[in-house]
């Protein structure tokens, strides 16, 4: 396209394909070269300051002992933080819970939403929209509000859940959901999942909208049952989205439980509902033991990095199939 307009009367076209413009001055050339970087500058600078600088700083702090108090300096302690970390039983437990939350979120982020999305997908426009709009409501509520509401519902002696269960004679003793080690982490998981379902449902709905109706019609002609159609057609066709949600879910599940742990159980009872992110927060801001927290961050940055790379590889392969 640019070759067609050789008229020298036109102003220099910074930004079009460079090799087509032999007649521009060196300064204009330099400006043109710099231009993309200039546009990227705000984003890159901000990322540098608020993401990568702190990340490197965290790596540095992982080998120090420091309380963040001004006037005090970090003291180099070598691998001491890591040694303490791996000896610390609470931390080991928190890893277990992190895995629990990560795996436990999968039904809420993939299974139930996929079913809801495919069921509503077959409906008329109006019903579909109403359902989806309602499913989405929990997603827009802020975590503290959500925490406060559920804390009230699950209150051991005065909460609705126990009142109803007692009335139905389903339980004889009230359950202290947030201070009973058998319940606390399940309730945290449930609340996080409750908030997640609507979002994931929309994600899968969008993936389903992209599917060609003809596949379903062909399946119907072949006499395939509903469940077969779901397994044979829906699931494979939305597999890239499944994988995307899987990655999201794994990377963010434990982070999204953070607020509820903080508000509802503070990690208790005896650490049975905590996860690594909450422990990191506690080390740093509760115990003012920054090096310890940084060491934990470093370990988990690496672990999640490996998981994400693996999933990324898998996703490449799957999209290859898809083509």
């Amino acid at each position, binding site marked *: *396209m*640019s070759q067609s307009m050789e008229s020298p009367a036109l102003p220099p*076209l*910074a*930004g079009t394909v460079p090799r087509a413009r032999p007649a521009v001055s060196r300064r204009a050339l330099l400006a043109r070269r710099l*231009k*993309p*970087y200039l*546009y*990227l500058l*705000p*984003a890159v600078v*901000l*990322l540098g300051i608020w*993401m990568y600088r*702190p*990340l490197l*700083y*965290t790596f540095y*702090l992982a080998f120090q002992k420091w309380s*963040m108090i001004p006037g005090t300096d970090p003291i180099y302690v070598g691998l001491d933080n890591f040694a303490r970390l791996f000896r610390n039983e609470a931390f080991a437990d928190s890893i277990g819970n992190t895995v629990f939350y990560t795996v436990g979120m999968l039904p809420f982020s993939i299974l139930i939403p996929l079913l*809801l999305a495919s*069921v509503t997908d*077959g409906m008329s426009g109006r019903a579909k*929209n109403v*359902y989806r*709009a*309602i*499913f989405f*409501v929990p997603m*827009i*509520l*802020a975590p503290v*509000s959500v925490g*406060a*509401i559920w804390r*009230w519902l699950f*209150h051991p002696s*005065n909460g*609705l859940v126990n*009142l109803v269960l007692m009335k139905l004679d389903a339980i004889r003793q009230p359950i202290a959901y947030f201070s009973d080690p058998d319940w606390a982490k399940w309730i945290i998981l449930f609340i996080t999942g*409750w908030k997640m*379902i609507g979002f994931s449902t*929309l*994600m899968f709905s*969008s*993936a389903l909208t*992209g599917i060609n109706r003809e596949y379903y019609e062909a399946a*119907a002609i072949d006499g395939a049952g*509903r469940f077969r159609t779901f397994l044979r057609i829906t699931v494979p066709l939305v597999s890239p989205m499944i994988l995307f949600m899987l990655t999201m879910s794994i*990377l963010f599940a434990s982070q999204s439980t953070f*607020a509820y742990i903080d508000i509802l159980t503070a990690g208790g009872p005896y650490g049975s509902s905590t996860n690594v*992110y909450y422990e*990191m927060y506690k080390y*740093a801001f509760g115990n003012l033991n920054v090096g310890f*927290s*940084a060491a934990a*961050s470093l370990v988990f*940055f690496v672990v999640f990095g490996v998981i*994400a790379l693996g999933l990324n590889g898998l996703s490449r392969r799957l999209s290859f199939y898809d083509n």
Partner: protein
Amino acid sequence: MNKRSPAFATLQHGLLAAMCVLAVFPLYWMLISSFKNEAEIFTSSLVPMKPIWNNYRYAFEQMPIFRMMFNSFAVAALMTVFQLATSLLAAYALVRWRFRGQTLIFALLSLTWLIPYQSIMIPNYVLVNDMGLNETLIGVVLPFAVSTFAILSLYQSFQSFPRVLIEAACIDGQSDFGILTNLILPNIKSTVASLGIILFLNGWNEYLWPMLITRKMENSPIQIGLKLFVNSDTNMWGSLMAATTVSCIPILLIYIALQRQIVDSFVRYGVK
């Protein structure tokens, strides 16, 4: 999918309705609890027999609710504006030109997905303190002035914009910035609006960072103020639910008004 027995359809709707109840009942319970008096609050009645306003009065006395509400809106709105501005520029550069280091930029952007906020909170906290910005809204907003999610999403939308149009505008003598503001933006207005909604909700729901930076009620978003209220040692469930209701109302109203667009914008960005 076309042939469905009525029984199956009923079952389907029944299950979906149950899911809907699960999604909104907690909100209903919050609302009616906020109107119950001290004697009724501990019962399971589904409507308050003698609705009272006292809980609201008490909540407003204890907390600068309007102030915190304003803070919440300011934080979410500022984050949205900054993120949109930085990502529009960045995404435009990435689509418009081929240049050295582009792959590196993409790598840097994608890698941020792997950084949990808990790993970078300490240095950021120290920096914000050193800048004297704790207890300020700008201190809350700054670390969130750029969003890689926004950049990558806009990059996708820009890519589908016809190049021919851009080059035509170029020939017409439009500046590069002019092309972005006069040509591309008006055409992807709805996309940007959708993205803006998502970013706003993200900002509204941000928890850990505002909690670290603002610890006084008058400086904090409503969420953090509510948390302080939750932790106080009283049996004030009625007023706590009143405060929670107030904290949810604005965002619920926005959702009801813009429900179509909000749902659509999530559907749109679902397509990766």
